[in-house]
């Protein structure tokens, strides 16, 4: 087993890509993900990978290059964030609709305007219904592990879908943290050889990609996509079990922290989940039965499993690092509510919007939320379902 190292989240993603050794990377730089490709291109320049780098003139072209290379029959990876993902949006649907196993590392960042380069989940949430598989990572370790597993899941013969692996821009992407690599040999054996499905470069068997599919067949393809998405959680767990064998690190669809006997719970994604865990420990020491659920696989959303994990709680707070501008609730809140709606007896739910544009999520915000949950569990009174926290009133 490799020894512990102190590295940034971006380096962790780049190292996982190096181990996976993609045939092609189409990329365009954007803060805070630039660093991923900057490091990766040095691996290319030093012949540590056999990757063909395609440096494009925009993210739309970067994803187009990835799509072309994937259709041609290669293992493909890229990285992006924020406005870059927004510009890719059209091509994201094409990547998933063509069932291409492209893997993309994302340093999650806020969207303009106002212009902001810092960490929040607006970019990932903007692409949440593009037909991709989404993972969110708490720290550099999870970023590395998720990225390595992403190749296996994307390229699984029952799946063949693109995968996004997110970690928090700057908070995780640029911080040095302790983590442990999987050594190259073990990692390469785990990821395995790429197996092309219907490659265009197999010129002895000509084929066509991207036909016009009209009213008579379009719904059949969409239903097929929905069906393959339903198979993803099973494959995610299967790959996680194999990964545990080589790394000793255990992963599920989501992480439950002190949740089994909890009366109140917080649902928090990515780096803020770690801070919340420390606060939960202090409340547990005082005898408060509070727990945490940290989503990992965000798309497809594990509705049933999450509903089962949370249904016993009296009150649940969902913390969103993005907002839906429909005068409605945050995206994660909407998903968790869906997961619980079908239970006759379900927790009272509140939604906190936090940390937008990299605003620090401090322990006192977790404390504030837990205190409110304690009160709701006691008297059932909700002052407001949705609230911005850490904002000047």
């Amino acid at each position, binding site marked *: 087993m490799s020894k512990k190292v102190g590295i940034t989240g971006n380096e962790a993603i780049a190292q996982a890509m190096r181990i996976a050794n993609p045939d092609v990377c189409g990329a365009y730089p954007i803060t805070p993900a630039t660093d991923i490709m900057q490091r990766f291109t040095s691996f290319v320049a030093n012949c540590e990978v056999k990757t063909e780098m395609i440096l494009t003139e925009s993210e739309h072209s970067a994803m187009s290059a990835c799509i072309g290379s994937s259709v041609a029959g290669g293992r493909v990876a890229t990285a992006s964030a924020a406005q870059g993902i927004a510009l890719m949006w059209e091509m994201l649907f094409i990547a998933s609709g063509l069932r291409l196993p492209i893997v993309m590392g994302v340093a999650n960042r806020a969207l303009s305007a106002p212009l902001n380069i810092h960490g929040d989940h607006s970019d990932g949430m903007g692409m949440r219904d593009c037909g991709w598989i989404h993972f969110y990572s708490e720290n550099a370790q999870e970023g590395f592990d998720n990225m390595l597993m992403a190749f296996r899941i994307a390229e699984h013969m029952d799946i063949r879908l693109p995968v996004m692996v997110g970690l928090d821009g700057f908070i995780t992407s640029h911080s040095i*943290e*302790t983590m442990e690599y999987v050594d190259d040999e073990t990692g390469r054996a785990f990821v395995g050889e790429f197996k092309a499905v219907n490659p265009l470069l197999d010129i002895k068997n000509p084929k066509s990609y991207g036909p016009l599919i009209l009213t008579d067949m379009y719904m059949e393809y969409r239903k097929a996509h929905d069906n393959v998405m339903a198979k993803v959680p099973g494959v995610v767990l299967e790959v996680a079990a194999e990964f545990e064998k080589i790394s000793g690190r255990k992963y599920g669809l989501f992480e439950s922290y002190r949740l089994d006997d909890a009366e109140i719970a917080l649902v928090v994604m990515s780096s803020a989940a770690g801070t919340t865990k420390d606060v939960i420990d202090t409340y547990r020491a005082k005898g408060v039965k509070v727990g945490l659920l940290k989503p990992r696989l965000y798309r497809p959303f594990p509705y049933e499993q999450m509903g089962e994990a949370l249904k016993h709680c009296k009150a649940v707070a969902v913390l969103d690092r993005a907002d839906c501008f429909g005068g409605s609730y945050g995206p994660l809140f909407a998903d968790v509510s869906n997961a619980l709606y079908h239970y006759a007896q379900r927790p009272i739910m509140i939604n906190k919007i936090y940390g937008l544009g990299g605003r620090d999520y*401090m322990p006192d915000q977790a404390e504030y939320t837990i205190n409110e949950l304690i009160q709701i569990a006691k008297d059932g009174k909700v002052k407001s379902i949705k609230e911005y926290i850490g904002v000047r009133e």
Partner: protein
Amino acid sequence: MAENVEIRWHGRGGQGTVTAAKVLADACLSGGRDVQAFPEYGPERAGAPLRAYNRISDKELRMHCPVKNPGFVVVVDATLLDAIDVTEGALDNAAFIVNTKKDPKEVRAKLKAKPTQRVVTVDASTIALETIGRAMPNAPMIGTVTRVSGLITLENAVEDVKKSFGKKFSQKIIDGNVEAVKRGYAEVKEG
């Protein structure tokens, strides 16, 4: 050593403060500990005040937010003492480590440090000029922090500076930095 040590660095852009925090984190890895090193990203301009943080712990580090209550406050540029309150949130037994020619007692008065708090000074800028030839106080500050915090040995710190700077710089500059770390360790004044 306490099981969780939190450090706040105050510097100005271009003084190598972020690098110092990273080198310290890397050196602390040797004991099998968990480390974090991260700057506060603002407008990244030479001369702009900046903060950087370290957490070093025997347990898994899960906090992902700035350090609020540091046990060590490292001031890489003494002119910051007039611009910002570097004592904010510091623990009652915190140590302030300040790069200055001034006497530690004078600095203690300026900081209005509590009797339970330590005030340590080192003339890191002069050491840097004499050893590296540039006013880059980060290397001597690593030496001073090593001594005051007791987190790592001087040998650990020297090895890590060699490793971190070895990738980028000539042997002359590495030797200068190593000498700077050693002098930063040796020339500590407390009051």
